């Protein structure tokens, strides 16, 4: 059990180091997130006060769009030099590959959020009045669920030739309950009202996270098995 965790940390550290040597994926994701914000500011006039209502949704839209870019690379980058086979033939459990990837992807997406969400608030001239604690908690739970399912499906779709097209098609329907909950919870937290509402949505999100984490952990080795 502990070796699984240390192996996962080793893999995550390798992934992050590999990424931050060039920062290519990361900077692409950040720029893409900001571009999405820009496009949305054309679509909804940011000077209009009613636009505040779409902010909670936009937080998740940029997270998912930018996140999918990174998730696409997560396993296809292992195909260069056939590194994935190197990992699979090594003395490690398949679950530690999954855990390591989840950790690395979560870190990268969180960093993208740290850049893009302030940009969103600034460009939409949004004054943050809600509670930081709940905001961050909801952001954490939602992003975690997104990465849990996304990493799993990224490994699944990496087997296909058109993996970057397949991943969103597989991922978005599965994310829908999480996103409904995340947007509602975020709205409640940002508008600082109905915190009980936010809590019950947060419960749904945690249930989703736990359930899918367990299922993905169990099923991941079937994806890693070659045939």
């Amino acid at each position, binding site marked *: 059990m502990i070796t699984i965790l240390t192996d996962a940390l080793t893999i995550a550290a390798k992934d992050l180091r590999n990424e931050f040597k060039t920062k290519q994926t990361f900077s692409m994701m950040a720029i893409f997130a900001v571009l999405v914000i820009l496009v949305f500011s054309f679509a909804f006039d940011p000077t209009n006060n009613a636009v505040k209502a779409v902010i909670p949704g936009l937080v998740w839209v940029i997270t998912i769009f930018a996140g999918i870019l990174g998730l696409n690379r997560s396993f296809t980058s292992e195909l260069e030099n056939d590194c994935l086979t190197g990992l699979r033939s*090594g003395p490690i459990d398949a679950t530690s590959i999954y855990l390591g990837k989840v950790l690395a992807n979560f870190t990268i997406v969180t960093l993208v959020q740290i850049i893009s969400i302030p940009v969103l608030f600034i460009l939409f001239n949004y004054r943050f009045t809600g509670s930081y604690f709940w905001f961050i908690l909801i952001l954490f739970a939602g992003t975690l669920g997104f990465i849990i399912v996304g990493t799993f499906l990224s490994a699944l779709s990496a087997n296909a030739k058109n993996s970057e097209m397949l991943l969103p098609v597989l991922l978005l329907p599965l994310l829908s309950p999480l996103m409904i909950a995340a947007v509602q919870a975020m709205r409640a937290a940002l508008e600082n009202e109905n915190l009980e509402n936010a809590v019950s949505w947060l419960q749904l999100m945690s249930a989703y996270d736990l359930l899918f984490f367990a299922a993905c952990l169990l099923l991941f080795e079937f994806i890693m098995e070659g045939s």
Partner: protein
Amino acid sequence: MKELETMLELKNVTKVLGNKLILRNISLSLGEGETLAVVGPNGAGKSTFFKCTVGLLQPSGGEIILDGEIIKKKSVAVKKKIGFLGHESFLYSNLTPFENLKFYGKLYKVSDLEHKSMNLLKEVGLYLFRDVPIRSFSRGMIQRLAIARVLLAEPNILMLDEPHTGLDQEAVALLNKIIKEKQKNGKSILIISHDFEQVHTLADRVAILKKGVIVDTIQLDGKMSLNEMKEWYDKVVMGG
């Protein structure tokens, strides 16, 4: 022939992929300190055979025993004893040689990692470039680093999948030098190759895999010449 402690044993290994029977009842054993080469025509199931022995694929029937332990899906500890050198290097091109070795060393739980990897880098002649991302390396250099990666974990058995293809003269010489050294140290080696010259210089025993069956094995022991071996191979593959 002297009695050898068996390192790797395949018992009636069968592998079905799709509707095709790729491997049929393969039984082979590899003694400690022995070098076995598996040769065969294309499509004979060499790579499937190899994937089964390194634990990437599960055999549909029979079992593979390495150092007294059956290789199963979950047998993590056994895999530590395998040094697997494949076609590809399994190395991360954004990382430096040193970082690559450190990563694999951690996964294989190598003790005294820094010291060992430095020594290995010197051995394969990459010490000078230890801090350069391997993206800019030539194929030969990457292959040398791949050799270092395999040796780092100090495996009991080396499994080499066509190790000589795509190597320059220098790297071939280095690889052969290292293999010979390991032979002297009593390590078992399994080579899959179609390079007869190299097989002849390295192997103690040669097995021919044809249509998923081991059709014949022969003891080399340095007595048989390269041409004799080739003749034998042609006879076995063409006949029957």
